[in-house]
């Protein structure tokens, strides 16, 4: 028998209070037709956060406690479906109610984790070749607003070799949401994708639920042995939603208005990335937009301390400098014997190209070597860095050799002689 309470004592921001007894912390309730969760108990005074926002809530609205925490349905029926932050379908499909699982579950036991050692192929040379994505890695894409980060995510979703994709959208523009949907449907990736989408127009509380919903579902798939890729965009919106809620609840802010537990908030989500001993894995790729291109802003800063490297999206491509996949060492010695050497060699030459470019812009004389570097940098940027390039790692490596051969003599590359003998495309140059 569910008891209905009809006297709401206060409504402040998105938080309402009601007098009730026997209520458990974090339980779910219905306020009118909107879901709400218990966030504070003080004797018989219960504070509830209304997911759809408290706008228009009347003090006479009925409050019904459901006696369970926030849950999400889990089954293979999820695949190909789109939901909002509370798990309500967005795609006119039927609501799912079977096999409900709680969200924001306990942390993974570190002694059951496996050392990450499997590469995820994405077909993007700047990732596969230079900063390999590794199964169970957590990586943010640091980006300024306006960069094509959602296009990049969509492309990774289409091309990555994984079993299940979970896309969590937070504060997405409606157009972006439609674009994601269209791209995935056209590319045929929708059949193994689940989407939890909060658009910028939706209530702010739902935004904070998206990562938990996405990751709870991902965790179940991973426990079934699936290789899951979770894409989260944009985590800065998530942090801002946390900030908004904390301030309305009169919490003491710590840094630029963000709550003191921002680090824990972000970490408890990112740390769900795991390679489970004897089961599947969760890899998390999130977008963190940097307000004002400032990496010391609390959101990218805290994120950097949590994640295992980052991809820097700048000027429409993944920057070779600043981008880092900390786990690439675990895998790039097993791909092809020239992978590491070519990666280091090409980046070193690209760094020299940047210096030459700077010299050129300052009006210095260009030597023959500078001209070679300029040619190389140009080819590198158009053939490898361009985000629309989609080739497997092996072809990317071959392409790398071709670019080198087109611009340099073998001994100018700084690569080991035996490697050059084996891989240099123009054999006549070797004699």
């Amino acid at each position, binding site marked *: 028998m569910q008891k209905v309470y009809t006297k709401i004592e206060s409504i402040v921001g998105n938080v309402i209070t009601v007098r009730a007894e026997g209520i458990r912390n974090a339980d779910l309730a219905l306020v009118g037709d909107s879901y709400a969760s218990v966030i504070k108990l003080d*004797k018989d005074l219960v504070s509830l956060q209304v997911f759809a926002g408290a706008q228009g809530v009347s003090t006479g609205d009925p409050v019904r406690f459901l006696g369970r*925490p926030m849950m999400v349905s889990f089954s293979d029926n999820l695949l190909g479906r789109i939901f909002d932050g509370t798990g309500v379908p967005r795609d006119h499909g039927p609501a799912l109610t079977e096999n409900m699982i709680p969200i924001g579950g*306990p942390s993974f*036991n570190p002694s059951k984790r496996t050392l990450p050692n499997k590469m995820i192929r994405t077909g993007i040379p700047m990732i596969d070749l230079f900063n390999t994505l590794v199964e169970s890695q957590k990586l943010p894409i640091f980006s300024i607003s306006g960069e094509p980060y959602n296009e990049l995510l969509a492309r990774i979703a289409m091309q990555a070799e994984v079993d299940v994709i979970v896309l969590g959208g937070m504060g997405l523009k409606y157009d972006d949401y439609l674009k994601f949907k269209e791209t995935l449907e056209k590319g045929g990736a929708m059949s193994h994708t689940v989407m939890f989408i909060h658009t910028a127009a939706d209530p702010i509380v739902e935004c904070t639920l998206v990562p938990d919903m996405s990751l709870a579902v991902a965790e179940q798939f991973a*426990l079934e042995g699936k290789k899951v890729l979770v894409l989260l965009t944009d985590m800065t919106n998530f942090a801002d939603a946390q900030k908004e809620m904390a301030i309305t609840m009169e919490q003491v802010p710590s840094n630029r208005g963000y709550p*003191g*537990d921002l680090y824990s908030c972000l970490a408890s989500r990112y740390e769900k990335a795991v390679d489970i001993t004897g089961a599947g894995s969760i890899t998390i790729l999130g977008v963190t937009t940097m307000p004002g291109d400032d990496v010391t802003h609390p959101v990218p800063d805290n994120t950097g301390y*949590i994640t295992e490297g980052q991809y820097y999206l700048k000027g429409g491509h993944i920057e070779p400098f600043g981008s880092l996949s900390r786990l690439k060492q675990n895998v790039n010695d097993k791909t092809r014997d020239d992978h590491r050497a070519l990666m280091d060699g090409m980046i070193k030459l690209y760094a020299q190209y940047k210096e030459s470019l700077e010299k050129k812009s300052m009006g210095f004389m260009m030597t023959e070597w500078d001209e070679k570097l300029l040619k190389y940098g140009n080819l590198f940027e158009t053939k490898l860095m361009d985000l629309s390039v989609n080739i497997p790692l092996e072809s990317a490596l071959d392409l790398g050799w071709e670019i080198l051969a087109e611009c340099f003599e073998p001994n100018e590359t700084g690569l080991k002689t035996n490697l050059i003998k084996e891989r240099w495309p123009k054999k006549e140059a070797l004699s």
Partner: protein
Amino acid sequence: METLTGRVTGVNGNMTKVSFEGSVRKNEVAYIIVGDKRLKGEVIKISNGEASLQIYEMSEGIKVGDPVEFTGELMSVELGPGLLTQIYDGLQNPLPDLAEQCGFFLERGVYLNPIPDRDWEFTPVAKVGDKVVAGDTLGTVPEGIFTHQIMVPFTTRGEWTVKSINEKGSYNVRSTIAVIDNGKGEEKELSMVFSQPIKKPITCYEERLRPDETLVTKIRCIDAFLPVAKGGTFCVPGPFGAGKTVLQHLEAKNSEADVVIVAACGERAGEVVEVLTEFPELEDPKTGRSLMERTIIICNTSSMPVAAREASCYTAVTMAEYYRQMGLDVLLLADSTSRWAQAMREMSGRLEEIPGEEAFPAYLESTIAAFYERAGKVRLKDGKIGSVTIGGTVSPAGGNFEEPVTQATLKVVGAFHGLSRERSDARKYPAIHPMDSWSHYDGVVDRERVERARSILIRSNEVNQMMKVVGEEGTSSEDYIIYQKGELLDAVYLQQNSFDPIDAVCPPERQRIEFDRLYDALLKSYSLEDKSEIRAFFNQLRQEFLDWHATYFETPEFEAQEKKIADFYMAKAID
């Protein structure tokens, strides 16, 4: 003993208010009974007749009216043989056992026995009739490479007499091995295990000594330029990606301590997995046994409940003090103390305390100071010397050292190893900034010559700054040589390749020889014509030194290369 019970009256995050009747101690442990689960918590405030309980678990599902059991005991850990090689969470739950029992996830409300249930070969030391006090040795058991002393619990007050003690033999860790009485009719049965409150330092020693002995880490730039002492403290602040954790892992692997305790406090679980997979495979340079045999891991990663994070540092330091009581040198590495401070900030916010700078509580500084002060070198009652060295990493927001946690830490530590983004970007590892960092301890090389070498580094840096403005052509040859000398010192002494099997570990004897040679080369004047000759000379000299690093110590190749270096620079040197 009758247990005191109470009832939950309010819940806010992981802070619970509890009404009670009777007397409750501040900082005592209590359990909230939620369904069939018992959730551990600590009383951190008592006001208006209500106790505020900080719950070490997630607080979902607690309701008003839930019963609470007060234990009357302060937050404690269990100490006894078998701690080494273990992996615990912040509340001393053994994680592998937990995985066996609960599967993949850390289920809340499950508290397992932290001390492995097994038999040990006990040899008595004390005799019947002996007078004993807290910290005195009753007997010993062999624990791996150490003789583990079974001691009178540190919380024992006054003088007691041994009434009976077991003979040499094999006993279970929890069976009674001795009975002591205090002459007032009180008797205590002691086993090999006892519990110890974590927030009070253990003081069962004769006197504290000045930390005057270098703790060798085999990292050149630390041992010579920024040394750490046994019983000293040091901190490693740095922005993300500068290599704090890699540096700590190196210290954990190579330093010449007897016991190493790694406290992963609010950091990535993946890094703990690295230690877990790597350490059992590695060999302890001192004993040749598995590195894990001298290691305890306390792991409270960033996604675990935040209140337990605060406890994890204290859990670790209490274990460190326990092994110090056996006359061992213990190194405690805490990664990261910023996360620990943030946990305090979260709790303080929930208690609605008036915030200090950046919302950290006002007692931040004194808490940090009290924690680091638990390090120290001591002379024990039996004359043995033991020490606890504490090294903490700090993760300052935005890499800016002007923030409260870094500043509070700098006030109390004896050495500061500041990591710099600039150096890590330039792939100069370890990325410790050689000029900003400092140390108050004595290293493997005498201080005078180190200072002289450092002054060359500073001058070289100045010349470099100047060269950026006037260009290479506007710099005099003398200045240019100084610049090159500084670069040489940086490249061949301060930087060290941790992936190279030989260079990664540089024993102190080798450091002294290498420093002597380099110092000699730095102080010489050279007759070199122009800039290109100077550059070529120093490039070649650098290459020779790097080749020297690649030779094994105390081999003919090592000596031959040293001679080659000497011959090379002496040819150009002028008196």
